[in-house]
């Protein structure tokens, strides 16, 4: 089979639709993750998802069901506990550890664990069915729709919480909304890059974008663009050269961040030379 034939096979086509939807949602949410400095929460939600997915597999359910239940639960827990206790990091850390332990337990209970565990941890995009693509796309577009409707209040609450509260926004509601959207985004991103590499789509593109532009809408669009570029090219390279798609996506997204930093540092140096 040559490359052209390979790219038009149904499993690559499924993967193509799935990565497109997920990259857009993750790129958009990533913008807020970086802005709100909640990368640790994103990290924890993914790990909690691992327990959910492992539990679902053990019970003979689709991993995505377990992911949704556990990730949403973790998002709400972090939102409620972190806000009221004022010690977000601790709450997140304890949640993370407890659920990883639970995940280990579920895996030990499930006999044919190796394959399932591997795909939860590192992603398994080349095996998704049409049904899963439909679910992933629906969830991704729901996230995008919600982000577009809540963009301004979310941005306001992220950059000036006190003023936002003074203007009548509920910070708790905003935070819970953000974490729920983050949970759903994490679930879909795990489908492609897995629990351990979820940052590649959720943080790296947004981090690259925020280095390159100072306008929030531009950064949001650029973050989605970088995520999409990494996902598409990663899928293509995975099919063409071989190797896990999640590896390629992670490598590309991380390089995008590296390149952004290099571009930024040469730009700063030039500005300095001009003003000197």
């Amino acid at each position, binding site marked *: 089979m040559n490359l052209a034939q390979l790219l038009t096979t149904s499993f690559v086509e499924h993967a193509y639709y799935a990565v497109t939807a997920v990259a857009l949602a993750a790129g958009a949410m990533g913008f807020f993750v970086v802005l709100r400095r909640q990368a640790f929460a994103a990290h924890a939600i993914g790990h909690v998802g691992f327990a959910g997915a492992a539990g679902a597999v053990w019970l003979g359910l689709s991993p995505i069901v377990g992911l949704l239940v556990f990730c949403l639960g973790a998002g709400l827990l972090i939102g409620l506990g972190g806000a009221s206790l004022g010690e977000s990091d601790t709450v997140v850390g304890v949640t993370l550890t407890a659920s990883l332990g639970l995940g280990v337990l579920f895996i030990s209970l499930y006999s044919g664990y190796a394959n399932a565990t591997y795909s939860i941890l590192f992603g398994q995009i080349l095996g998704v069915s049409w049904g899963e693509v439909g679910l992933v796309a629906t969830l991704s577009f729901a996230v995008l729709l919600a982000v577009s409707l809540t963009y301004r209040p979310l941005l306001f609450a992220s950059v000036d919480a006190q*003023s*936002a509260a003074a203007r*009548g926004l509920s910070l708790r509601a905003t935070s819970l909304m953000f974490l729920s959207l983050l949970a759903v985004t994490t679930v879909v991103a795990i489908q492609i890059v897995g629990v351990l590499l979820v940052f590649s789509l959720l943080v790296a593109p947004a981090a690259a974008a925020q*280095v390159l532009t100072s306008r929030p809408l*531009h950064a949001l669009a650029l973050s989605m663009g970088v995520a999409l570029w990494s996902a598409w090219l990663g899928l293509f390279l995975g099919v063409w050269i071989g190797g896990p798609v999640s590896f390629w996506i992670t490598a590309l997204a991380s390089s995008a961040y590296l390149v952004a930093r290099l571009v930024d540092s040469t730009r700063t140096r030039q500005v300095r030379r001009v003003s000197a």
Partner: protein
Amino acid sequence: MSVLSLAGASVSLGGRVIWRDASFSVARGTITAVLGPNGSGKSTLLNVILGLIELSEGELEVFGEPAHRGNRRVGFMAQTRSADATTTLTGRDYVGLGFDGPRFGWGRDRSKGEVVARALALTGTTSFADRPMHSLSGGQRQRVALAHASVFKPDLLLLDEPLAALDLAAQAEIVDLINLIRDTTGAAIVVVAHDLNPLAPIVDRVLWIARRQVRSGTVEEVVNEQVLSDLYGHPVEIVVTARGRRVIVGLEEEFAHPHPHGHDHSHEVGHQHFADFYDEENR
């Protein structure tokens, strides 16, 4: 009619009385300085006026109505804003959030650009409005934040420590700008500060909060030895310098606690080390 009035007002948070029996009013076009040691409840007062904290006793009226959250006639400038350190936000974007930040949905108000531009012009921030907030100087950021707070030309403007962490020249600039906003918009302005002297030239009234009590009046009525000695429960002396700055002697414990800072034996109300101490605590 006064813009703001409190009568017999008390606030308790978590069962602890913050201050009690405060009665004062604020008139249109006046500037009121809110002073007192750290943790005395100055910011709490602003939160009460914003409708974010309820009084445990007494009455509060803002424009003749009970305080309610999200009142557009009340502008607010927060003391700490993560906007200041955010790389992807320009001054213009931040002021724009003052205009439609709380609004959900896709709609876009056509007048936004014009209203934001007017607020930027009023505060003299147009020339650096398109630079990221994190690249601006402390004084420039405070000017942008004033534009953000006054984007709707509020009738009551609440400023939480607008002079904190600024050098003396920048402080003077912000004081002039606050005065200019009062003169051009006719707003009543309430400024929380830890330092009366930089504000003294523009202040009409003073509100002093200490030991859970609130005293209000003109500068002469409040910042005198009798009132402050009574408020703090031990004798204080006030020395007025040749330039009219007031130095208060006898409050070292009150202000230095809980983080003693240096060994100064007088607390000038406009003393720089005090500003340093303040920053340290709020970082």
